């Protein structure tokens, strides 16, 4: 296959993948924006405290694994040490978020749970911002689809530039568009980074 034909084909395939992703992103985005059209179930908050059965003597990642297995939690995990020196572990799953706080003395585990009934709106809303691979095969598949789409966007951009470069004499202003597309967002990023 000729080089130019191959690049065109890759460009088209990657655009099809982006199309599939964008369709979902737009659909969930429209649902998110028009949230007033949907009945949003209330969030039920419950809190309880349990004594510590196992101290955190390793890394916080290891302790998160222990909590996940011990209490059968699921979802995306993150952890941090807050300003009061507590270790805070979060398990985020659509419709079910749990925050566990381990005190500096490691004597109590405080559980705070937010539960929301799974409706079409809550699922679409949360899948729009879903991150990570945890939560079961369906979530992993969603995350893989997400990654493939992002990869396709890079391929689409690169092949687009390659196609333009071969025909640049016919599209003389391409350099300006390319430079503007790269330099303006980079400039804004740098302003945020270095602004006093």
């Amino acid at each position, binding site marked *: 296959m000729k080089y130019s034909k191959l690049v065109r084909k890759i460009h088209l395939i990657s655009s*099809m993948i982006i*199309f599939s992703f*964008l369709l979902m992103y737009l659909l969930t985005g429209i649902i998110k924006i028009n949230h007033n059209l949907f009945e949003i179930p209330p969030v039920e908050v419950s809190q309880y405290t349990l004594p510590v059965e196992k101290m955190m003597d390793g890394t916080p990642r290891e302790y998160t694994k222990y909590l996940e297995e011990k209490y059968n939690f699921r979802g995306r995990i993150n952890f941090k040490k807050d300003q009061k020196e507590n270790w805070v572990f979060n398990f985020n799953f659509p419709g079910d978020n749990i925050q566990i706080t381990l005190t500096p003395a490691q004597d109590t585990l405080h559980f705070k749970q937010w539960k929301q009934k799974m409706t079409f709106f809550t699922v679409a809303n949360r899948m729009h911002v879903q991150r990570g691979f945890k939560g079961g095969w369906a979530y992993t598949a969603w995350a893989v689809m997400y990654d493939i789409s992002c990869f396709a966007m890079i391929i*689409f951009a690169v092949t687009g530039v390659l196609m333009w470069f071969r025909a640049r004499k016919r599209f003389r202003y391409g350099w300006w568009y390319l430079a503007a597309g790269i330099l303006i967002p980079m400039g*804004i990023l740098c302003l945020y980074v270095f602004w006093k």
Partner: protein
Amino acid sequence: MTQWEQHLNIPDIPDKLEFKLAVRDSMGIFGHAPWWEDYIDSLGVHHFMIGRPGKRYWITVPDRGNIYKVDEIRTGFWDVLIQLHPLAGGMRGHGKGPFFISAWKIIALPMALVLLGVMVITIHFWYVRSFKKRRSWIIVGAMVLFPLILLTFIWLVG
């Protein structure tokens, strides 16, 4: 991290968020005040955070007097990149800031339109080249239906 202090005369404001935003504006910084980054320490001193892409300010409210202490933390390039992504719609609630706060919204809009253009052009190419091919319908159908089925599955099964 850098630390600095500022002398402020903030009137009594009962609403917590309004108070934090008043402190922010008086300091001449910009950013939002997340409700979860707020605590009272064991000595009864109130601390809260003002955050914006690139910086976090941990502010200590004085128990007496009016000298506010600030821990200023720079968060770096990746944090800016990650935080600007969902801020494409604008930085509402970030207060008065420099010109580039609104510039990002203006830049994000044409970028979103370009992506929509990609969708339209893709459909056009597909229609011109593959509309009559059965294989093409199967591939496109699978690509469109897969995420829809996945979303429905998560909704109904969990």
